[in-house]
């Protein structure tokens, strides 16, 4: 992956949603080799095959230092960069309002 190797979410409580969305659209644009906006549904656009689906999940885990559990694999969390940003903030505790389990589970 060309998006650096350091997970940015070690500083997750401080990482802004905009910064995360920008990271994710950058990754998507590179990986899918076409411009992807924050609300583009790349699943509906027919751009996702089995290999890319796993690549996307693995990217999110490594880049944001989190673990995607079986129950997290909800298409609605993954279908746009904005949805993914919400998911990342939820998982990393950056979204304090919805924080339930801080840290791993």
């Amino acid at each position, binding site marked *: 992956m060309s998006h650096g190797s350091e997970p940015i979410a070690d500083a997750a409580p401080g990482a802004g949603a905009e910064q995360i969305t920008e990271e994710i659209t950058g990754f998507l644009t590179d990986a899918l*080799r076409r411009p992807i906006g924050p609300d583009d549904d790349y699943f509906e656009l*027919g751009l996702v095959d*089995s*290999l890319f*689906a796993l690549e996307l999940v693995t990217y999110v885990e490594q880049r944001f230092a989190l673990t995607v559990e*079986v129950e997290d694999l909800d298409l609605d969390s993954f279908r746009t960069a904005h949805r993914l940003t919400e998911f990342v903030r939820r998982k990393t505790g950056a979204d304090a309002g919805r924080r339930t389990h801080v840290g791993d589970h």
Partner: protein
Amino acid sequence: MAAEGVPTVKCLVWDLDDTVWDGVVLEGDEPVPFPHVPGVLRALDERGILHAVVSRGDHDVATAHLEAHGLEEWFCAARIGWGAKSAALSRIADALNIGLDTVAFIDNDPAERAEVAAALPLVRCYPAEAAADLPERPEFRPAHVTAEAAGRRQLYRTEWRRRRAEEESGGDRRAFLASLDLVMEVAPATEADLARASELTVRTHQLNSTGLTYDEDELRKLAASPDHQVRLARLTDRFGDYGIIGLSVTELTPDDAVLRLLLMSCRVASRGVGGLLLAHLVREARSGGRRAVAHFLPTSVNRTMLVTLRFAGFTPVDEPSAGGAPLVLAVPDDHPLPELAGPARLLIRDA
């Protein structure tokens, strides 16, 4: 059958000079192939074993000489040059997506064999004089020889042309997939398919939901059982036939259609057809008044299948259970009926 624990050979890599033909091919020199070589190429090809070339010299001269003697069509990959042969062998194994423990190498030169053996201890090396006897050896006798295995060389050569078309498409994946004119056909398994279907259950690891393996007899019983459905997916595109690339085994209970095994060949993982097959299976379950249920047993390599199942709407219905029991997932009743959209057209054949 091969000795226990030692996989049979999937690709035999040939040296050319003094191994395939009697002498060294140079411009102006015309060595003749050894008389036993065409028969060995054919015999192994018919068993689904691939042939490749790793040799010294000039690529164009050597390839032209293979063509002149009608041998070029037997080979699905060639690396001819002056680098270490072990490196060339590794790259061929990568390109064919096979493990080095299924690669064999035949060369008249003991120094070349020693270099390969030292660098790649899993590769089995043979001297040139062993060529005529290779088809008799157990490691060249795969347990499953199917009609499709015999055509494997053509599949790889077709795949090579596809790869070049993809490189030339400039990277727009959707446009490339659309240009392929993919057609996936889903049909109940028939007697003629059972050997290939069984082979798929043994050979497929990544896009495999539970890793259950079935022999031909078991599949025959399941296909005939009113409580089960065995479905096979075939894929074609404008370049040719991918053959059977997907298999599902579903157990029907009064309320549920339980997907006990779903697998897709890794050759088509980048074709976007896994979701299409799942969408079809969910619709088939619902049209029979049943809930679509899938079992999943994690391994170190099959997370792709879990992601595919989850993104197709399958949701865990219970806590992960201990003791090796599979994870049970189901498509909730209020989940919208999946659309049969994707890069491929779907043809459904009934029993």
